[in-house]
């Protein structure tokens, strides 16, 4: 049900504007993230979404393992822009910039 709604919203937001999160100072803002940095970043999602995005059976919080990279990036962008109704994700998404979101999207897309 929720997933269906998200997909519908995502389609509408295909051409939505993406904007940078106003983040903390990042010394390596242009360097690519190392593999360990991406694993560490993905681990910050795991506190709610489970290790590598796998939630426990029947979880009200959705799993994010296996989502496509584009869909993930689009959702995060929409959360940042406040375009998807949410309790916490609008607030959390603003803590990750586009480069991080792209890396996270690739990481979770690779999880099965």
């Amino acid at each position, binding site marked *: 049900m929720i997933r269906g709604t998200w997909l519908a919203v995502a389609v509408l937001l295909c051409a939505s504007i993406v904007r940078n*999160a*106003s*983040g*903390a*100072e*990042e*010394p*390596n803002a242009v360097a690519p993230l*190392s593999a*360990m*940095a991406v*694993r*560490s*970043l993905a*681990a*910050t*999602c*795991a*506190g*709610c*979404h*489970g*290790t590598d995005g796998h*939630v*426990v059976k029947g*979880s*009200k*919080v959705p799993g994010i393992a296996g989502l496509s990279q584009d869909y993930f990036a689009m959702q995060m962008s929409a959360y940042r822009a406040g375009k998807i109704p949410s*309790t*916490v994700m609008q*607030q*959390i*998404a*603003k*803590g*990750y910039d586009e480069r991080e979101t792209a890396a996270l999207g690739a990481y979770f897309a690779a999880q099965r």
Partner: protein
Amino acid sequence: MQRRELLRSLLAGGSLAAIGACTSLPSSPKAGRVIVVGGGYGGATAAKYLRLFSDRTLDVVLIEPQASFISSPLSNRVIGGQLQLSELTVSYDGLRHEHGVHVLRDRVTGIAVDRQVISLASGKVLRYDKLVLAPGIEPMLDTIPGLAEGHATGRILQAWSAGAETVALRRQLEAMPDGGVVVITIPEAPYRCPPAPYERASLVAAYCKQFKPRSKVLVLDANQDVIAMGTLFKKAWSELYPGLLEYRNHYVLTGVDATSLTAHFDVADDVRADVLNVMAPVRAGRLAVESGLATINQRWCEVDFLTFESTLGANVHIVGDSIHSAPMMPKSGFMANAHAKVAAAAIAAQLSGQSVNAAPKLANTCYSFVSQSEAIHSAAVYGYVAEAKTFKPIQGAGGVSPARSTLEAQYADAWAHNIWADMLA
């Protein structure tokens, strides 16, 4: 410093020749051995993620005296009568069987940082390449006259950490007659989990409203105001528990009388209770204090936030509630889980000769129940700021719930089960 000398000499009495020989652990793991002390949110997460981030090459030992993990988050719902402690209890078998962590039910009696060995109550002596301490908190019962005696007899409970005391506090509430007075005292910040006392007060009030409506819940806070999600808590209290829950600020507890269940305060009049729950001031867990690592006001451990390594002891990392927190960083289970992942990634990098991630991040979401069916949250994302050598909240990110809701109560429950799996499964 003297304490560390003492611990070192205690250890010298043990047989160092027995290192490795007295256990079934591999004597010289190739990639290195990390010993994690404490199996709570910080320690259990560290153990699992050390294995994950090292691609199972590090030998990881977890030392924990309890047979199973018991979650303090959600334990206010046991006090409120909605959950059993068994529902917050998770086995360490997942760490053993899924992740190859050596889980030893034991207690650390000494640390020799210069030789990188620890001694255990069982007599074992273990060598480490890296030590991770996650000792949690210890209530400072001696700071309130009368409290240690009152606590020893079970008359005055604190229930900071989930366990037998949580259930005992529930029993006291059940035994209280309708019309009784429940007093909850809150210490000055910092303490474990900023919203925890306010959540507890809410759930005790919810229980009284349903079963003992003539009762009163007095929340006596040493702080100037509710220190977490204040607007949301106060709105819930005025709308859900009018005349039942009363909040008073600037109540600094100076003593208790366990016989009459009376609380004394620095300025305000004495308050008599039928159930007296004193949430005493807390400090870093005993091991951190006794090993001399808690140098900040003799209460908290200072760490290098890039690696969570102690600023005192080389190769000793400390995570969770026992550290001197960064600005605006709560002591929470979620935060301990986040600390542990940064520490695990740093340790895996250090022991394999790689460079440490220069820009780690942390995320935190604290859910609090305000009634049996509704919850609120506070969230933040933190980035490491190299110039300041600390984590700072990322501007514009984070925030609190717009309003209490049943949806967030469901999320709170889902969060708990997912983070327990993230730590232990």
